[in-house]
């Protein structure tokens, strides 16, 4: 009995220690990226190329998801507001929900699933096929040449995608609320304009999505760079990227909301 308990405690302790080590190594990896970021700006075309792959290629999923989330918000919001006779506030409900919460969070979650997992798989496969080692042997720092441009592309892409998501969401809410249900168009837009504050609502959302961009991209790149160079290693790393990024986004969202409210 005691032996089994001890074994469990030892196992738990080992897992905790491993997790702490990984967080430490991840933080060191992030600092290495920041230290080797010069090339990402001096040769900005490298970052722009990655921005295309991670940002522009994610546009379709972001725009479609944004529009449907906005449409659902329009329907649900109308049903709730109708009970209090405040259907005219539908515009501000849709906009505030999207700009403050749903835009940054859902855009980051979609980015982690679509672009983050692709980044992990790409870096992991580059490692498995010795492309990273080849670069090292050519006296080219792979962190500066391969990792840092992808990092900055992710950091720039997530706030832009969150903005697109919110815009499409508002459009979806307008389609359902005004065009389909028949809420007054003037009150929809004027309520939105008067109740959405640029600094407290829009900038808070932008700040959140910047933080999510850093976290999601850093996790994706670290998992790829740290993946064992095997098929199982890369697939495991891709799964970890999605799981860890999603949890990090939701936990950080709570912390940031609590701090900014």
């Amino acid at each position, binding site marked *: 009995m005691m032996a089994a308990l001890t074994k469990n405690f030892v196992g738990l302790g080992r897992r905790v220690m491993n997790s702490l080590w990984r967080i430490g190594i991840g933080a060191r990896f992030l600092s290495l990226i920041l230290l080797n970021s010069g090339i990402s700006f001096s040769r900005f075309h490298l970052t722009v190329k990655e921005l295309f792959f991670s940002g522009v290629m994610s546009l379709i999923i972001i725009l479609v998801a944004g529009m449907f989330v906005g449409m659902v918000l329009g329907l649900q919001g109308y049903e709730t507001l109708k009970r209090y006779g405040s259907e005219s506030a539908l515009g501000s409900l849709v906009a505030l929900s999207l700009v403050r919460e749903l835009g940054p969070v859902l855009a980051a979650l979609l980015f982690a699933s679509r672009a983050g997992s692709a980044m992990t798989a790409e870096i992991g496969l580059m490692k498995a*096929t010795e492309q990273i080692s080849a670069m090292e*042997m050519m006296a080219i720092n792979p962190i500066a040449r391969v990792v840092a441009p992808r990092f900055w592309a992710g950091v720039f892409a997530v706030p832009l995608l969150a903005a697109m998501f919110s815009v499409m969401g508002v459009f979806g809410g307008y389609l359902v609320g005004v065009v389909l249900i028949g809420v007054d168009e003037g009150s929809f837009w004027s309520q939105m304009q008067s109740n959405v504050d640029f600094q407290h609502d829009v900038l808070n959302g932008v700040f959140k999505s910047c933080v999510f961009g850093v976290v999601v991209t850093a996790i994706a790149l670290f998992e790829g760079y740290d993946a064992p160079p095997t098929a199982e290693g890369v697939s495991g790393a891709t799964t970890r990227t999605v799981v860890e990024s999603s949890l990090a986004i939701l936990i950080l969202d709570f912390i940031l909301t609590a701090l900014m409210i």
Partner: protein
Amino acid sequence: MGSLEYRCLKATGVYNVLSEALVEIRDVNFAYGHRPILKGMNLTFPKNKVIAIMGGSGCGKTTLLRLIGGSIKPTSGYVKIGGQIIHELDRAGLYAMRRKMGMLFQFGALFTDMSVYDNVAFQMREHTNLPEEIIHDLVMMKLHAVGLRGTHDLLPAELSGGMARRVALARTVALDPMLILYDEPFAGLDPISLTVVGNLIKRLNDALGATSIVVTHDVQESLKIVDYLYFVADGVIITEGTPDEIKASNKPFVQQFINGEMDGPVPFHYPGGDYQQDLKLKSIERVKNNKRKVTERYFGLDRRQKKK
């Protein structure tokens, strides 16, 4: 240069004057954790020669190459390239040294998101300020040298294994390195590609005046192109010499390696436990006994006894 001549010159110190060593490995030990891989290795690689390091899988050949490339540090001893101890260099020094080196990886390690042209041009664009027109001419010349000028528009995925290896070779010599490292350059190639790659290694080394270190276990191809061979087994050099000396060697290991014999100094079986025990033969006997007892209990007699 014959092995005896080589050893005499090395012993008298004249060798270093006649043929200066580009790479020196002295008393190098290396271990992964508690598992020793290299045990007191001493190797010399003179300039303008093609030298092979041969041995079975897992004997430490690739580890030696990684030590020369500065990817790992020896536990003791040193690796000197051009008079500089590679593992004592800082990152900038190591990168400066690596700019004078080229390495061909086992499966080419071409960048899969770039065309053949961009792969060969990669180092030129990263390390030089040459105008694109000159880079174009240089890339075409390198690809022409390996016979693949016509593939410059293709992606690595569109090449066969042998062609990918040749493109990787063109990329390896893109900046005319003084030292070229080859990690299993013949692995997985058909006989024609094997001869082509072998000849290219020799021709490029002669044309560039470089030193080539070829880690391989392909005996026949290596004997055709190299100037000198080291045989490694269990982390030590067990024999060395020119191709003629190696062919004439009567050492059992060399004979087993050259003739590809299944058993010999390198055993066919990896050390393991008792074979009968691994097959659980004892428990099979026990099952048979139990079966016999059950038969006796329900039928009164063992069936075999009944037959009698």
